[in-house]
């Protein structure tokens, strides 16, 4: 028997046991949380992006807009076809390019280029963009997403690796990429 205010052996054991499990819980929680958050962790997200070649510049005739396909720099063995990413390359003239993401700035559906009317059209909700990627009509609030690009030893490179989404630009981070 214990008097009030005193801790019994049994009560102490329960408390020690609870503390013990709490420690174990924390020890397990940290790696579990890291595991769950790993796709969004800072170290990872910085590694998602890199310069990728879209091929020789002369594949893209001046004045035309062509579909190009690259393999996402970050991929896993189970990706299959989904590691491939399409984008629209507009060779303005000379060494001036524009590379647009395939994803509509509204909800990410794949926009199609119509050279006859010089428009990109989205099949989902009818967004339309002019040849330079600026918004023409429909629900998108902005123009098409653009990749940063550079020409090196005759190859067109873009900086890519992440699905462009409307929220990215409003974040302020990575603004340079989806200018």
């Amino acid at each position, binding site marked *: 028997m214990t008097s009030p205010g005193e801790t019994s052996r049994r009560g102490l054991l329960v408390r020690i046991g609870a503390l013990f499990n709490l420690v174990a819980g924390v020890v397990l929680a940290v790696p579990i949380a890291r595991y769950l958050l790993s796709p969004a962790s800072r170290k990872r997200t910085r590694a*998602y992006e890199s310069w990728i070649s879209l091929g020789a510049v002369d594949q893209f005739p001046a004045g035309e807009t062509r579909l190009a396909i690259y393999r996402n720099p970050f991929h896993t063995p189970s990706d299959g076809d*989904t590691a491939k990413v399409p984008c629209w390359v507009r060779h303005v003239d000379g060494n001036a390019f524009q590379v647009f993401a395939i994803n509509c700035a509204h909800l990410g559906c*794949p926009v199609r280029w119509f050279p006859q009317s010089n428009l990109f059209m989205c099949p989902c909700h009818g967004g339309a963009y002019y040849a330079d990627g600026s918004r023409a009509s429909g629900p998108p609030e902005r123009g098409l997403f653009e990749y940063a690009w550079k020409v090196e030893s005759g190859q067109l490179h873009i900086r890519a690796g992440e699905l462009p989404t409307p929220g*990215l630009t409003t974040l302020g981070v990575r603004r340079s990429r989806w200018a």
Partner: protein
Amino acid sequence: MGLRGLVRWFDERLQLGKPMKAVLEHPVPRQTASWFYVFGSAALTLFVLQLVTGILLALIYVPSAGEAWNVLHVLNRDVSAGWFIRALHGWGSNFMVAIVLIHMVQVFLFGAYKYPRELTWVVGVLLLLVTLGMAFTGQVLRFDQDAYWGLGIGASIASRVPAVGHAVVDLMLGGPIIAGATLSRFFALHVFVVPGLLIAFVAVHLVLVLKLGINEWPMPGRLVRRATYVQEYQQLAHEDGVPFVPNAVGKDIVFSGIVLLAVAACAFFIGPFGPGGQPDPTIIQVAPRPDFFFLWLYATLSYLPPSYETPVLLIGPALVVLGLIAVPFIAGEGEKSWKRRPLAVMAVILVAVGWASLTHLGLHTPWSPEMDAWSGQPIPDKYLEHRTALERQGALVFQLKQCRNCHALEDSGGKRGPPLDAVAVRLTRDQLIRQVIQGGGNMPAYGKNLSPPETTALVAYLETLRPKGEAPAQNASNAAARGSGP
């Protein structure tokens, strides 16, 4: 030891016989043995069907972005009855969402959410959410083009969450793009996490139904009062009640059987859902569309003004859920009968009509350009007859510049813009030129994309588009200036 002895042997150890008998034979008000009270049990039956067929599919399915689509075809073609199991699971899902919604409407109209069944309703709302969660994650596992681009839509919506949108997208996709990790995590959600929640909520829901008793048949004028309700209900259930088994369960069993047969019939005669085109993002000739129960959302997204979209997408769902949860706390007492609750009836009608209209629109997508109309749907002959050379040249411009993708003639072509069968009755030549060159009202400006001769020809053609006997649009001020106006 006979069968009876065996049963007794087990019951001596498990001691489940008595409580089970009590549960099965619990008294319910006489009138609840009704055809209106069969939807909850039917939803449960469908859930069991989904569990069984889901496990069967998991025996074959591979949650790999590189393999899933091929395996779905193996299921459809190479595994005996594989197509049928897939069809049962797909149709079972549609039926389950439908029955859960009907159950909810019935509960709402019969005032069953009122005191003391508030928590039953709240858990029911959670069950609706996890059921929809199952439907959404399941549509991703059918990993085809629609699933792939549907995920892109989901990511675009998630990215709009302020401040953490980017992290939410990475967590949702399991990486920077829609790929292998995305399908794996939707598989884990669909097969472990959401069903786990569903089972837990169903258990609580059922316990509550048993503890509080099934809602009595609402009588106009019989009001729910916190002080007296429990006693009144006990009277109804015990003095005028019948045991759930066998008196009330009969209709439940019959209806569940009918529903199962209906699912099987749809599965057998209509077959499985897809898979659609292969989930290769470089095939961009697609028009992604969500499954039936998300079409209303798809329609909403195309009609919202751009500036409203983000708040509506992010706050709207939370408000709807909070509103549903609040129902029993706002109207927890009083009249149960729908005959004396005109607001409740109107709310149901309003939601139903709104939902049906949006779903109808979602099926027809009048806001989407028809991407192949310009190359696949020639201008009807009667719109070419008796035209001059210039006008026919304009018709060619009309076709080749993809105008048809958004504008219909004789119902063929896109519905994104207005049909142009009678455009010359509405717009004068000047207005036509202005509209073509400058665009506006959701139309892109074609000024840079048409040469002056093309514009002249196009407008000359558009001016011929008016029904016989209807006068062309006139500029009233011109007529007045010439002194011939009214």
